[in-house]
C-alpha cells in the first residue's frame, strides 16, 4: 500500500476556509480527531494514499493539491515516518507493473475498461445517493416567549443504506442563543450557529437543539433560521433545510399552540411527538409537564417567566 506526504498547513487552511471541524474530517476519513490534528500540525506528515484520497474528497480538492510541493509522487517511506494511526507501509510505484504494461500495449482495451469503470462509478454514486436523495426538514413552534427556551428539530430522511457522514449547519438571525448536545454527549453552547455531525440510522436522523430568545425581544419580533445539510458528495453547495424558517415572539409557552394559557393533553402529547427523542438528547420537558399538570399558566413580563396557575389567567 502506498503512502504520500501531505502538506499539513494546507490541510488546516482548506478546512478552516470551509468552516469544517476536525471532527467532520475525522468522521469522513474514518480516523480520530487526534490524527487529523497531528496531520495538520506536522509540516509534511506521511499518510496512507487511501486516507489522502478520502481527505481530498472531504476537502473537495484533488489528492495532488494536498501533497507536499516538492513531492507530488507517492513516496517510499519507512514505517517510522508514518502517523501512529497508519500501518507501516512500504511502497514502490516507480516501475510499471505487468498490468500497466498490458494496458500500454492494448490502448483500446484500456479505454473500454476505463469506460466500464466510469459507468460502474456512476451507478454506484446513483445507488448510494448524492445530496439529491436527502431531505432535511426543520420543525419549530409558531411562537415563543423571551428568555424561555423552545425546541428546534431537524429531521433528516434519506436512503436506508446512506452511510456517509452528514453535517448540519444552522444559523439564527435575531437575538438568541442555541444549545444542544455536543459530540461528547454533554450540553454545548452553539451561540447562533448550531452544528451537528452524524450519520443516519435506517435512513433517518434527528438533530434537536434548543433556542433561548433574548429578553430584549419584543412581542411581534421574529427569529429567523436558515441552514443546510452537507454530505461528502455535495460538499460545495450543501442542500437547504426545508420547513418553517421563523418563529414569532409572543407571551405564550411554545407548546401552547392556541395561546389560551393552558397546556392541554393534546398539546403536551403533540410536543412529545414532535420534539422529543427517546435518547432525551433535545429539550427538557420537565417544566412543560409542570405547566400541563397545573392546569394553567401566566406570563410574568417583569421576570420573563411563566408562572403556574390553577386556572388560566392569561397575561399579567
Amino acid at each position, binding site marked *: 500500500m502506498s503512502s504520500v506526504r501531505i502538506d499539513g498547513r494546507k490541510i488546516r487552511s482548506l478546512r478552516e476556509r470551509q468552516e469544517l471541524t476536525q471532527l467532520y474530517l475525522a468522521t469522513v476519513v474514518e480516523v480520530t480527531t487526534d490524527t487529523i490534528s497531528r496531520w495538520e500540525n506536522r509540516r509534511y506528515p506521511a499518510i496512507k494514499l487511501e486516507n489522502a484520497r478520502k481527505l481530498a474528497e472531504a476537502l473537495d480538492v484533488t489528492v495532488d493539491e494536498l501533497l507536499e510541493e516538492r513531492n507530488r509522487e507517492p513516496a517510499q517511506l519507512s514505517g517510522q515516518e508514518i502517523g501512529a494511526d497508519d500501518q507501516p507501509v512500504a511502497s514502490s510505484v516507480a516501475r510499471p507493473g505487468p498490468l500497466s504494461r498490458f494496458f500500454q500495449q492494448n490502448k483500446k482495451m484500456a479505454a473500454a475498461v476505463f469506460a466500464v469503470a466510469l459507468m460502474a462509478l456512476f451507478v454506484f454514486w446513483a445507488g448510494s445517493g448524492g445530496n439529491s436523495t436527502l431531505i432535511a426538514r426543520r420543525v419549530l413552534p409558531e411562537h415563543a416567549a423571551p428568555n424561555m427556551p423552545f425546541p428546534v428539530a431537524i429531521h433528516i430522511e434519506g436512503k436506508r443504506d446512506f452511510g456517509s457522514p452528514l453535517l448540519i449547519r444552522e444559523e439564527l438571525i435575531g437575538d438568541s442563543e442555541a444549545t444542544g448536545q455536543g459530540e461528547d454527549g454533554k450540553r454545548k453552547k452553539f451561540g447562533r450557529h448550531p452544528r451537528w455531525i452524524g450519520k443516519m440510522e435506517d435512513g433517518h436522523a434527528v438533530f434537536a437543539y434548543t433556542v433561548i430568545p433574548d429578553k430584549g425581544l419584543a412581542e411581534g419580533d421574529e427569529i429567523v433560521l436558515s441552514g443546510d445539510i452537507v454530505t461528502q458528495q455535495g460538499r460545495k453547495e450543501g442542500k437547504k433545510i426545508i420547513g418553517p424558517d421563523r418563529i414569532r415572539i409572543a407571551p405564550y409557552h411554545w407548546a401552547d399552540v392556541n395561546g389560551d394559557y393552558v397546556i392541554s*393533553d*393534546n398539546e403536551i*402529547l*403533540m410536543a*412529545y*411527538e414532535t420534539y422529543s427523542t427517546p435518547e432525551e438528547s433535545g429539550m427538557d420537558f420537565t417544566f412543560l*409537564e409542570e405547566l*400541563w399538570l397545573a392546569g394553567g399558566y401566566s406570563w410574568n413580563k417583569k421576570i420573563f417567566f411563566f408562572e403556574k396557575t390553577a386556572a388560566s389567567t392569561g397575561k399579567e
Partner: protein
Amino acid sequence: MKKLFLCLFIVLLFFIIPALAAADVVGRYVGGRGNNVQVRLTVSKPPPAAFIVLQHLPAGVRIEAADPKPSGFDPASSTVKWLFKHPRPGSVAITMRLSRPVSGNMLTGEIRFRHPGSGKMVSRTIR
C-alpha cells in the same frame, strides 16, 4: 382501468387501513384484592410518542400508593394522571393502593394518545 382501481382498492384494504388501525393503546382492570387495583395496558405497534392515563377516583377515595408513580393529581376532578413517554410495544401494568376497597364497576379510567398514523387524538376507556 377498472382492474387498476380494483388493485389499488385491494392494496388499501389489506395494507394501509390495517396499518393505520394497528396503532393502539388499550387498558383493562385486572384482578385486584381489597384496596389494590391493577390496570394492564397494552401498547400496539407502532407505539405513540407518549400517552396519558387518567384514573378517576370515586368520591371519598384517595390513592395511597401507586407504581409507577403518578405524574400528578387533579383534586378538582379527583383524577390521577400518568404520562408515559416513548413507550415500547407490549404490556405495562399500573398498580394502585386505594384508601378503601372499591368494586370494579365503580372505577373509571381513560387513555389518551395521538394516533401515530393520523395524528388524531384518540381516547380509550379502560374496561
